[in-house]
């Protein structure tokens, strides 16, 4: 092995960690914010972005990060600095700094046979002679909760093996779980064709579908190449190349009436979450005044902005996918909601109501 370059001499280290404050530029964590502010689905999880890190990392944050990283690196012994930095959402400079801090930690009298033997050499992080800090910390309640929710959700996914390695991993984790973990459940919607679409994503096979669009109230036959299947706020979606419009589109799986492979295979292409094409056309913004009795609108639809008025009403700006869709919303909301602007939609509620009413006037029941 090449000559080791110690990052710091341990016997010179006399600083406490807590006193060491490092001001540095912040590096925002990879944001997972999605372009979904205008999605006509439930809003609840709409802001499910990982909070971006702001401000310099505190010494305590850095130490608690190290207590996770050190056992991890000791298990692997050699990892590229760049790989490790990416894994832990740190810049390489931050990682090097943290590892240098670890390397100067030890026990009096700080002789070189100290506790933490981590050093960097030739772009690699190398850990040897694990002594202390070699075992990871116990999982926190939040972490146990996350693991159990993620794993039981994954077990519900199409194609999951109920007796596979995930199940046995969960069984091994179960002694760590507090009693209350048993009564936390995630229910995924059961929607047909999800499994078939997943297979299509993996094979690239084009699918012929019959799709109902509430925005136009029409059913269309189209051919799509599925690229990603995902669940969000209780609904399954498929992102696909739509050969009818020639665009990338997102379809709701529960609105697919028929689905069949057509034996044409396209080259595989992966779509990242932040690339999902929620809408192809530019959207119109509408301002609604929502009275108290229709407050559920505020909770159920994604909005662009919200202003609370003194009288208890709320002014909401929403993006609409079509006039038909807005009409439907107004019909459901009743007199608790009025369109403030644009003027062209001010009469939409009564127009929509009249069109539905026409049905009741012509039918003899």
């Amino acid at each position, binding site marked *: 092995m090449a000559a080791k370059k110690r990052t710091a001499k341990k016997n010179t280290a*006399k600083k406490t*960690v*807590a006193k060491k404050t490092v001001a540095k530029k912040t590096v925002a964590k990879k944001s*997972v914010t999605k372009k979904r502010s205008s999605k006509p689905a439930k809003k*609840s*999880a709409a*802001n*499910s*972005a*990982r909070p971006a890190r702001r401000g310099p990392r505190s010494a305590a944050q850095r130490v608690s990060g190290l207590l996770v*990283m050190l056992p*991890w690196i000791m298990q692997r012994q050699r990892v590229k600095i760049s790989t490790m930095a990416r*894994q832990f959402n740190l810049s390489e400079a931050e990682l090097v700094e943290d590892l240098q801090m670890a390397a100067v*930690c*030890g026990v*009096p009298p700080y002789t070189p046979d100290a506790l933490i033997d981590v050093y960097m050499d030739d772009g690699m992080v190398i850990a040897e002679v694990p002594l*202390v*800090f070699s075992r*990871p*910390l116990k*999982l926190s*309640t939040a972490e*146990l909760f*996350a*693991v159990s*929710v*993620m794993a039981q*959700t994954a077990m519900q*996914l199409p194609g999951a093996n109920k007796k596979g*390695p995930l199940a046995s991993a969960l069984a*091994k984790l179960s002694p760590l779980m507090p009693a*209350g973990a048993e*009564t*936390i*459940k995630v*229910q*995924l919607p059961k929607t047909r064709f999800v499994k078939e679409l*997943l297979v299509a994503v993996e094979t690239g096979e084009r699918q012929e579908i019959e799709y109902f669009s509430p925005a136009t109230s029409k*059913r269309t036959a189209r051919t799509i190449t599925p690229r*990603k299947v*995902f*669940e969000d706020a*209780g609904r399954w979606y498929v992102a696909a190349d739509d050969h009818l419009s020639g665009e990338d589109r997102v379809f709701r799986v*529960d609105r697919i009436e028929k689905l069949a492979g057509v034996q044409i295979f396209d080259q595989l292409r*992966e779509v990242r979450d932040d690339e999902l094409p929620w809408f192809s056309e530019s959207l119109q913004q509408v301002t609604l005044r929502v009275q108290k009795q229709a407050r559920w609108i505020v909770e159920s639809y994604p909005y662009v902005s919200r202003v609370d008025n003194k009288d208890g009403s709320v002014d909401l700006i929403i993006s609409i996918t079509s006039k038909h869709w807005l*009409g*439907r919303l*107004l*019909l*459901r909301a*009743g007199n608790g909601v009025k369109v403030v602007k644009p003027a062209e939609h001010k*009469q939409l509620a*009564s127009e929509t*109501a009249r069109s*539905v*009413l026409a*049905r*009741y006037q012509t*039918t003899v*029941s």
Partner: protein
Amino acid sequence: MNLLALLVDRAKPLTLRQVRQELGKQYPDSDEAARAAFERDKAALREMGIPIETKTLGGDAAGEVTYWVNRSNYELSDLRLTDEEREALQLAVATVHLGAQHGEEALWKLGGERILGKASMSVNIGLVDANMSAITDAVMKRKTLNFDYKGEKRQVDPYGMLSRNGFWYIIGFDHLRRDKRVFRVDRIEGSVLAGEARAFKTPVDFDVSAAVPTEKQMLAAGDGEVTTAVVLVDAPLAPGVRREFGESAVIRDREDGSVEFSIPCANLDGFRLWLFAMVDSAEVLEPQSVRDHVVQWLESLAAGK
């Protein structure tokens, strides 16, 4: 970190005096400042999940406190996960997004790693509510929760939680109503306050999934006099309704592809929302009272009042 290393390495309780001797210049010279620095480090370690045990000495050293850490209190025991099991967990974490990083952190502790590529499938389960960590902690550890809900102060023993259709629900015993109730997490007003751990027992026959009514059950759970209505749904939408309510709700298929369904409507507000989601593709045929209710709603809206 040096404090932790020292306490672990010495494997016997140390007094603050001994700690200061060992760590030398790392703590300030003045007693007061050194004590403050030590307390701060101790609190920081506790925060990280490393409890520092303390004991007040008697005899000659009466009043002096000793400190030590017990590794078995904070170190994860080896779960002996196989590579396959670790990979399965990694895949689960990569597929299911919680909007919080705890899953990744758990993976690292379990020796796994985040998968950084793109997945062909993903599931989003939002955990973003500001109260979420306090609530999950309370459910896991059986702590009683206090919060404001619909303008009232509630005290709830959270028996369980359910994520459905993008919402998180708490199901628990509501001390105000003296009964089991369901709360939507995002409708909690302000922040929640949790009590002591192990404050209550969850009934043995408790079933989380059954405790939260489905949309279908919600339509039936009202105090309206009429419990079902006959609804005609046009051909394009009929298959969806048939899937949602099942074959037993079908009264008859018409020749043009439209279908007559029997739909619960005891909860008229819920029923109307469901009905109007189909705009003019559905129509209430019977009973007359429900039909009249719908017509009245439409007429008032048409008049723009």
